């Protein structure tokens, strides 16, 4: 991972992209025939950049993330992580799943869930507990360490899943609607947290969201997907600088313009005939 600071929103073409998606297509086999979901997706994510993905429900965002994280093989095309073909889940990539409640192990306490990937890496107990505790505190769950996931509210479960990914400290982080179930205030705090974390660890982040404000506020780039079969309809560069804050950034005229542009694109996408 390069240590040089890339100007926000400028795809580092000279540099090797952290994530590179080339002509990716994916179709599902169903009893009623093949269902083409993704069709020829091309996308480059520069090291340390934060790319938000927005698109209609059912467009194929989750499918795309699953291909990127090596959980699924594309029908055509390929994904490269730091130049290497992704044909299995790569080591330094973490995922926050959309279906957070099922992604937590009900037999493990909150802290054990968070520490599980670290434990599997052989990290000493003290260290992994400390890291997990810090991650849980960061998402506002301090004090819930020894409870079980099914004793938590939906939003709390979702934050456990986020804490697990953060504690893992991956090079690349893939998040599927990670803030869907938290309240506005917590959400704003988590957004700030994401920006901080990204800066601190120079993480590359791929972030699916349905909240357009969030996409524009967080992203260096926003990829708007079309309706099925899905392509990248437009990749919008967000030139709002790297230091953002809820109060100032969101009141910038550029923010409002970008916001409107994304909204417009999504509305058009949804009007396209669905397959």
């Amino acid at each position, binding site marked *: 991972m390069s240590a040089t600071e890339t100007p926000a929103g400028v795809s580092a073409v000279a540099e090797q992209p952290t994530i590179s998606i080339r002509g990716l297509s994916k179709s599902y086999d169903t009893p009623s025939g093949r269902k083409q979901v993704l069709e020829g997706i091309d996308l480059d994510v520069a090291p340390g950049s934060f790319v938000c993905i927005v698109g209609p429900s059912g467009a194929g965002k989750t499918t795309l993330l699953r291909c990127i994280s090596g959980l699924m093989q594309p029908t055509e095309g390929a994904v490269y992580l730091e130049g290497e073909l992704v044909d299995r889940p790569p080591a330094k*990539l*973490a995922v926050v*799943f959309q279906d957070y409640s099922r992604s937590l192990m009900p037999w493990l306490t909150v802290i054990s869930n968070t520490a599980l990937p670290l434990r599997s890496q052989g990290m000493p107990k003290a260290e992994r507990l400390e890291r997990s505790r810090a991650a849980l505190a960061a998402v506002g769950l301090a004090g819930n360490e020894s409870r079980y996931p099914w004793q938590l509210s939906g939003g709390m479960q979702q934050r456990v899943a986020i804490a697990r990914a953060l504690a893992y400290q991956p090079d690349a982080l893939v998040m599927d609607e990670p803030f869907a179930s938290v309240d506005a205030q917590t959400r704003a705090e988590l957004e700030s947290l994401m920006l901080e974390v990204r800066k601190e660890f120079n993480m590359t982040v791929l972030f699916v969201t349905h909240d357009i404000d969030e996409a524009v506020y967080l992203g260096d780039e926003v990829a708007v997907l079309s309706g099925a079969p899905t392509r990248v309809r437009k990749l919008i560069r967000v030139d709002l600088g790297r230091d953002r804050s809820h109060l100032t950034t969101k009141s910038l005229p550029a923010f409002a313009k970008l916001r409107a542009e994304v909204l417009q694109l999504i509305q058009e996408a949804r009007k396209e005939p669905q397959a």
Partner: protein
Amino acid sequence: MDVTAAGLPAAARITARGVRRRHWRPSRGVLLALRLGFIVLVLALWELGVDLGIIPRSAVAAPSQIALALGEVVPTTAFWTAIGLTLLTWGIGLGISVAVAVPLGIVFGIGTTAYLMFRNTIDFLRSIPPVALVPLALLLYGATINMAVALIVFGSVWPLLLQTMYGVHQIDPVARDVARSYRLTARSTFFSLILPSAAPFIATGFRISATISLLLGIGAQVIGGAPGIGVQLNVAEESNQIATVYAYILVAGALGMLINLGLQALERKVLKWHPSYR
């Protein structure tokens, strides 16, 4: 807090009335009493059945007679030796079964290829009655504990193997993806995902196999003469002492009951995360 809007009664009074709970859970003491009550009820019906001649005395002894016979048998060392040997046989047999069945079941549950290769053989083997193998077991091991253990293993490996396999199939696909994407090591995947996922099924299988082991153990004693309460049972049977026969049967049943209640209590602890026990 008497906000009785629209003529509604005050809340305090309502809760006092007690509302239907979705799952009524008796306290431990109450449960114990109910259990004992049910046992007493069954014993009373049994006693009455025999006393009124509905159940012929010559076939089934009355609980009162059995109690008398038990009173004679229990103080003897032969009785306690027999129980000890029976439990020993059971423990070794079940232990081996678990050690064989759970790992194999997990392998077969995960991998299609392994399962396809062995499923026919397994379905063949598990349909072979252990009773029919008694002469072979006797020839190989004699009328010993080993013989009984061999029969137990042959009979109780299969239910556990199958249950484990089905349990592994139970893994939530999302949890499976978590394990893959965080690249959990084989060890972590095994202990933190596969085993807990399959645990409810394994627990059921464990209770099935535990009883089968006990039955096969006693069967091996009755038929094959391996040491244990089965032999005592034979002795009593040959001399037409029905009450004593039933005393031993009662003991066998009681052993099974205690073992399984113990296993259930253990299960409740280990699976406290599971919806059945939350």
